[in-house]
């Protein structure tokens, strides 16, 4: 699988800020190594733009190894591009043919306003987390011993799979309803599956769902697109669990 180089055409969304109108711009880029990641390709484009004294393309990125959740991008109509189980930083140029035209857009969702070019504001996710995505335990050094509560491996593994969500927002961007149910479902599930999370389960489900609605995310109609595009393979089961937790909470809550 020796690396080769390809020439590509890019159609990239440019938008000065959240108040201005954006448009697609066309760029050609030559000698892109197929061993490069998609973001390294954008670095290469930006280097070319800077050398031509043009404004480089703004995009979010940080860890470049698929775990921080900062990179985004809608590539050829797919969140994180044409590969499965990867973030954009893990997408490699070997996925594209020589001479290809590649469309690059920001996440599109009412709850994720564009900051600039391909950068969007996902702080709504933080606010949902602040509404209930935690166990209320203070730092003390005097909690009980970590092995005091055995947790069945299966439950621990499922909780971990839900907790593997990186908060990138691909689920929202790819959902025709702009729903954040996969994100919220994953967090609610993680705690619902563990004994530590049970005490506050009712309040958590109600508060997180309320905040999710307040932020303007749409509802879930079970199309399943989110699961397909999730780079971490978060399962739709988590949405089902969220629905159960929310229903249970609504029934038992006296608020």
């Amino acid at each position: 699988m020796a690396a080769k180089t390809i020439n590509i055409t890019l159609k990239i969304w440019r938008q000065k800020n959240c108040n201005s109108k954006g448009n697609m711009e066309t760029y050609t880029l030559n000698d892109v190594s197929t061993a490069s990641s998609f973001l390294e390709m954008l670095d290469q484009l930006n280097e070319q733009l800077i050398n031509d004294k043009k404004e480089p393309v703004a995009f979010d990125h940080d860890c470049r190894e698929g775990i921080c959740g900062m990179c985004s991008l809608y590539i050829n109509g797919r969140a994180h591009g044409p590969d499965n189980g990867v973030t954009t930083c893990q997408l490699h140029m070997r996925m594209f043919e020589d001479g290809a035209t590649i469309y690059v857009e920001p996440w599109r969702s009412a709850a994720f306003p564009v900051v600039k070019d391909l950068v969007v504001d996902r702080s709504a996710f933080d606010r949902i987390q602040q509404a209930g995505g935690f166990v209320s335990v203070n730092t003390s050094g005097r909690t009980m011993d970590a092995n005091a509560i055995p947790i069945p491996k299966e439950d621990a593994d499922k909780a971990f799979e839900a907790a593997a969500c990186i908060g990138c927002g691909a689920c929202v961007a790819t959902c025709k309803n702009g729903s954040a149910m996969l994100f919220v479902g994953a967090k609610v599930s993680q705690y619902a599956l563990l004994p530590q999370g049970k005490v506050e389960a009712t309040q958590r489900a109600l508060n997180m769902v309320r905040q999710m609605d307040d932020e303007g995310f749409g509802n879930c109609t079970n199309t399943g697109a989110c699961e397909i595009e999730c780079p971490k393979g978060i399962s739709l089961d988590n949405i089902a669990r969220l629905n159960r937790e929310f229903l249970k909470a609504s029934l038992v809550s006296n608020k």
Partner: protein
Amino acid sequence: MSILDSKIPAGNISDKWTDYKDHLKLVAPNNRPKIDIIVVGTGLAGASAAASLGEMGYNVKAFCFQDSPRRAHSIAAQGGINAAKNYQNDGDSVYRLFYDTIKGGDYRAREANVHRLAEVSSSIIDQCVAQGVPFAREYGGLLDNRSFGGTQVQRTFYAAGQTGQQLLLGAYSALSRQIGLGRVKMYNRHEMLELVKVDGKARGIIARNLVTGELERHSAHAVVLASGGYGNVYFLSTNAMGSNVTAAWKAHKQGALFANPCYVQIHPTCVPVHGTNQAKLTLMSESLRNSGRIWVPKKKEDAEAIRSGKLKPTELKEEERDYYLERKYPAFGNLVPRDVASRAAKEVCDEGRGIEANDTNEGVYLDFSTEIKNKGKQAAYAAGDHNPSEEKIITLGKKWLEEKYGNLFQMYQKITDENPYETPMKIYPAVHYTMGGVWVDYNLQSSIPGCFVTGEANFSDHGANRLGASALMQGLADGYFVLPYTISNYLADEIRTGKISTESSEFEVAENNVKSQIDKFLSNNGTKSVDYFHKKLGLIMWNKVGMGRNAQGLQEAINEIDQLKKDFYIDVYVPGSNDELNPQLEKALRVADLIDLGQLMAMDALQRKESCGGHFREEYQDAEGETLRDDENFSFVGAWEYKGDDIKQEQLHKEELKYEFIKIAARNYK
């Protein structure tokens, strides 16, 4: 007498922290809301500190440059976190964790700090489990452990290959709770660009809102820097693209001494470099060394054949392979500490036996075929099949690997387009962690009163080499269990101070300094991008201040960086304006500080005429190529004092390291 007072309390090593803590001053709950604290950075050290201080009732403002505190680079830590729980009954104890960490650091860390770290390690796991962190468990429902380099016990707790993610999300959840309760105010997409001192004390920061470009003044009674390490001085590293030294460096320029900058950890297991447009390197967790065997061909000709694609690694017979770590270090084998494993990889590649077909031929194999057979057989037996076929063994063995390291194997395959279940992984050392950092005393306070530094940003616990799974431990120890006590002791004298004004001349001057630096960059009519200079800096650092260092190379590096710095300010081109999101401007401000730091690292490496841990001076090695420490002359922390724009004028101060409880010895893993 040295100006460095480590403030290590007297007494027996195992009682120091408890006694000291019991006698620290407290701030009463009714007074805490009158006190403001700034925390810069929201990784493990910052998020845990901000959450804990918020819970205590202080007014906390937390800052991160990312779009959310959950993105901080602690999230990328893979392998695990150490704690002296002895759940596996293999003789572990606080003392052993303490001893292993001091030895792993090649006797260049402070005894008292390291012992405290080992003492609180157990509480960290308890705290995280209480928060709902889903650590890996055994079938009985209890926590699982694994081994890491430099130890002979299993004390590492983990969550698949995503331990850092799970721990950071735990700390982020605690932080989010405090933000929701209004006790912590969070500033996303903000970067600290200056530390403000009033009457000699740290009293605030100037931060740039990265979306609007606005410069903001924030005051506080104390400032906590938890801004991470400086590995990006090498351009290519396992750090995140945004990781930088700016917050720490601004404190340094304001008088905080910078300690042991030359101590850098080059991690042995990263995916090798693929080409010149590469932006970063990806780590493959050290935990893989539990299951993988590292080798290169015995013969140079075989290595050449492999590089040219004429020979496959799987075609090479057992006796034609050199499992060089197992050969050289039979006691620890593939689990020697990182610095030892990295140097050994460099050595075999320098001999021409590297297997990667890149510019430098640098790469070695990490092979899982033995483990596949062992674990597959075990799994078959466990399932009642005592005469399994070869095929079944291999299938079950691969399944075991997938469960243990699935995400890492997938990550590797995506990057390299090769299947590590079928053919050995290719790995090579890469810059990973920086042990040096802002000098702090036992209270984690820098030489500027009121400026505290935690996590990777300080220098205190890892000496000249950090053991695997110890960074997560230190970040959380500092933030959850050390800083809340020591900062309160400082703040007890601040309850009558009242709000700190941001209208003072000190804030005015600080803001103007930042503004003029930004204006200078934006109006500089240069021709080259920031990355152009950053890559040049990275090459100088990697070639001359990297895995092997010598006096001549270090002197050259110092001179070359001098020139690079001049060129940078003359010829850098920063597009765009200040009043918008401008990633190139952010980068320029960071690279300016990395250039200064790079020069100081070379100076520090030059003055340290010995080899220890990650600092390998080619002039100081024994007959077998192992590090040769000089305890008589270099058993000290080297802390540098800023003396103005010319870094070469910085002054070295020495804090002598005293070993009262551990007998200092040659570090031996054979």
